[in-house]
């Protein structure tokens, strides 16, 4: 059973109390974008076996969206952070580096 800590209300939430929202840090494309950009935004997914950044919603708690850094191969959770950011904060990156030295994900490392 996956347990994530909501960074807004501070509660540990069981996965049954959360909704999964798919890949995090997607760059939004709208009018004026090329077909390739729009396809990438809508459908192109990293889907890695290992470190992944995801959006989650504290559905039965405060209702806010947050981000989680998680390993899809071991279900290990590296940390959660607020969604109002374009990239993972340094403390999350450090927590990942401690367990997965040399990690990369899209443009982050």
């Amino acid at each position, binding site marked *: 059973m996956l347990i994530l800590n909501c960074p807004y209300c501070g509660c540990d939430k069981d996965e049954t109390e959360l909704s999964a929202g798919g890949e995090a840090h997607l760059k939004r494309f709208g009018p004026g974008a090329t077909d390739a950009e729009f396809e990438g935004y*809508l*459908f192109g997914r990293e889907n890695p076996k290992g470190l992944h950044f995801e959006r989650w919603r504290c559905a039965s708690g405060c209702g806010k969206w947050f981000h989680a850094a998680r390993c899809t191969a071991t279900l290990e959770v590296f940390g959660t952070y607020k969604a109002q950011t374009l990239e993972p904060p340094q403390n999350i990156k450090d927590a990942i580096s401690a367990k997965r030295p040399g990690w990369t994900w899209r443009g982050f490392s």
Partner: protein
Amino acid sequence: MKRNSVFAVAREALRQHSGWGRTWGNPEAKKAYDVVIIGAGGHGLATAYYLGKNFGITNVAVIEKGWLGGGNTGRNTTIIRSNYLQDPSAAIYEKARSLYETMSQDLNYNVMFSPRGVIMLAQTHHEVRGYQRTAHANSLQGVKTEFISPARVKELCPIMNIDGPRYPVLGALWQARGGSARHDAVAWGYARACTDMGMHILQKTEVTGITQSAGNVTGVETSRGHIACKKLGMVVAGHASVVANMAGFQLPIESVPLQALVSEPIKPCMDVVVMANTVHGYMSQSDKGEMVIGGGTDGYNAYTQRGSFHHLEETVRALIETFPMVSRLKMLRHWGGIVDVTGDRSPILSKTPLGNTFINCGWGTGGFKAIPGSGWGFAELMAKGESPLTDQFGLDRFRAGRFIDESVAAGVAH
């Protein structure tokens, strides 16, 4: 390879079964092949088989990281049906279903195909309308299905409670020629036939990299060294994104666990396959007497081959209302497989950005039923560069917005 027949059974009975031999080969890898297929599950082996049978291409290696048919081929609930809404889906799934009918004779290997009929329950008014629409679409597509009444459902499956307060049975989509088959035997039968044609099945051989030159693949790096190829087929289901990433392109796929479980064996009580899509529960009885139960997928990406317990609980909770007699059954085994789900819930059988490389993936939660049709179409695509069965399933449909939408169309979980 010796042919299996009633005479072979009699002959072996007289000499204490000492002469059966290996079902498939375990050869040393060559340095180069005409075609390399990554993934020796049902779809990969079927592709190799039809490359040999339909196009005479037999210098083929099928590379497998684990053991033959040990991924989703050995982890599904063996349901075979073709009652899809969209024309391209109906075509490829119906091709597959019809090939299953003659597969045992074709492969000379008993895959225990049992056309016992598939009932898809309509338990909401939305589903009633959806399945009536599917039945009409199927009659235009030449797929024999019908929408049946609750009384007929009860007649076909007497152990079902059709008056449940939460999940009443309001009707069902009935495909009399659907059914199930022995999933392991499908992989073994294809492997045996491939070996017979001189193809190599390389188990415990992990692909670690893909070598390229000028936009074409030249071979694969494996745990047994480099293997060169003229054409490459990627048929790795749940790990499609991982292998595509090695080749340098991204797929519109998310990998999630899908769970199933089987009960202790009981006496025959149900001779049809029942699917209840509202509650993500599927049930049939195996020839051994176990009740085989399939559940829903997890909501988030994982490669762990086990799923969240609460999904299983939801499935079982709903099933025991529809089938009260199973409430006291003990469950023997439970497992998960990693399914590759696309945005429109339809598969990808496609060319790739690399010239001589093809990909077959995205079958999501419904790959087993499609194995022979998928292999047939994908082999044609690899051999000729195009196939009427696969031309709608290209990767380019996501850019063009030309979806084959099976998820919204009928509210169907596969």
